[in-house]
């Protein structure tokens, strides 16, 4: 029997640039050319002012830990509990769900507002996930 696998994202035309970015080692966000609003998840218009003139840019990949749970049960397929499910606030503003790697999955190690940086983890030949680790230095 095949081992249960982690849920795998399937890009759409509107999100393809994001997933192409993670494969290329870039965390890509979008900025509105009209009002400068930076937003996530991807879409080809600004959710603040409705402008369709938006640009894709590379995020610094830096942020901080906004909140999390440490999931014990039930565990998602492909995960070994306990594991943290985190929401990271990027320096550019948007927040995204992720996992915190290179760090014990404990309340003591996972301090709110701790500085984080993106670390890309290859899932397979097509998908690379943006994870975060405690920022160095």
């Amino acid at each position, binding site marked *: 029997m095949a081992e249960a696998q982690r*849920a795998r994202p399937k*890009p759409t035309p509107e999100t393809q640039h994001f997933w192409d970015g993670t494969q290329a080692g870039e965390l890509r966000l979008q900025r509105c050319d009209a009002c400068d609003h930076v937003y996530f998840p991807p879409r080809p218009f600004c959710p603040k002012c409705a402008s369709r003139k938006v640009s894709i840019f590379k995020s610094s990949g830096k942020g901080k830990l906004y909140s999390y*749970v*440490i*999931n014990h049960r*039930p565990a998602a397929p492909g995960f070994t509990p306990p594991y943290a*499910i985190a*929401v990271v606030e990027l320096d550019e503003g948007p927040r995204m769900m992720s*996992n915190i790697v290179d760090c014990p999955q404990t309340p003591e190690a996972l301090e*709110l507002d701790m500085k984080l940086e993106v670390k890309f983890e290859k899932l397979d030949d097509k998908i690379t996930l943006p994870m975060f680790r405690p920022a160095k230095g």
Partner: protein
Amino acid sequence: MRRNQVAVVGAAETTKLGVIPDMSQIQLHADAALNAIADAGLKLSDIDGIATAVETPQQIAHYLGITPTWVDGTSVGGCSFMLHVRHAAAAIEAGLCKTVLITHAESGKSMIGKQPRFTPPDSLNGQFEAPFGVYGPPSMFPIPVLRFMKTYGITHEQIASVAVVQREWAAKNPRATMKDPITVEDVLNSRMIAYPFRLLQCCLVTDGGGALILTSADRAKDFPKKPVYILGTGESVETPMVSQMETFNSSRAFKVAGPLAFKEAGITHKDVDHLMIYDAFAHLPLFGLGDLGFMPYEETGKFIADGNTRPGGKLPLNTNGGGLSYMHSGMYGMYALQESVRQMRGIAPAQVKDAKISVCHGVGGMFAASGTIIFTNEK
């Protein structure tokens, strides 16, 4: 919408609550609907409007043999039934229909005739949340809690006290699933589910259902049961992705729906005799008390821990025991509405003496949606 123009004239839960292995989900809908129709002294043919969630209105209408002139399939999670009440009240006032049946049922525990929840991998949730290990509500709904606690100085013990107080209410309700008393220590020593939440801070998983019947207030006085009037209503949605909430310090959907209902009702917080805040998890009453404007967020944890919401307290909250102790089939909003109606009828097992105004506040998804209904028994 104008106040007190529409009333609840029929209300009932399924004959059994808890584990119901001998009924499919659709039959649970029918069981609740038939009980509510009997409660209102009506015939099926009297129903000309139907609303339901998860199951489609056409499914329920056909199964029951109803030919509606108004349908509402709003399905925004556990508060869908609050939205149905609001929409039904507007529809009755507008003359689109006369007598609306709202049904909820879920074979949440036995999973008979129930479609499993599925997140498509090309949906936004499937791309930007599912790959990071979210797996069911316990792994998602508590994600904002640690931020909320840090911002407002709320303690683990205070959130644990939500479950303790609600168990006190449940003990007074013969139909509650969990009735044995618990302590804060019991809560904090129960099995870890998703830190910071443990088993006793997470809702039950049960089978059951409920149904409501609404009609215009001028017709309501001819029904066998005491009418319960709709005084104010509110609704909103925010996001299906918990990670994308504007803030974890409050719920935008709560902050829109709740105040809308208070404004429409023309009441202040001091007028509220009885309060239901949908508690899928133990933090929700704290969000609700803050977002609905009962008190500053900083005070919500202490307010509950100090016993203000327990039997005999000044703000009776979740008097059926809530989703934590009464029952939770997956979409608890209907049971909160049923308890508000019982309180307004004066027949609740844990009746709040002389209660005249009940606020019933619901959540859908993981803070994705919200609906608030304010009831009164005085026209």
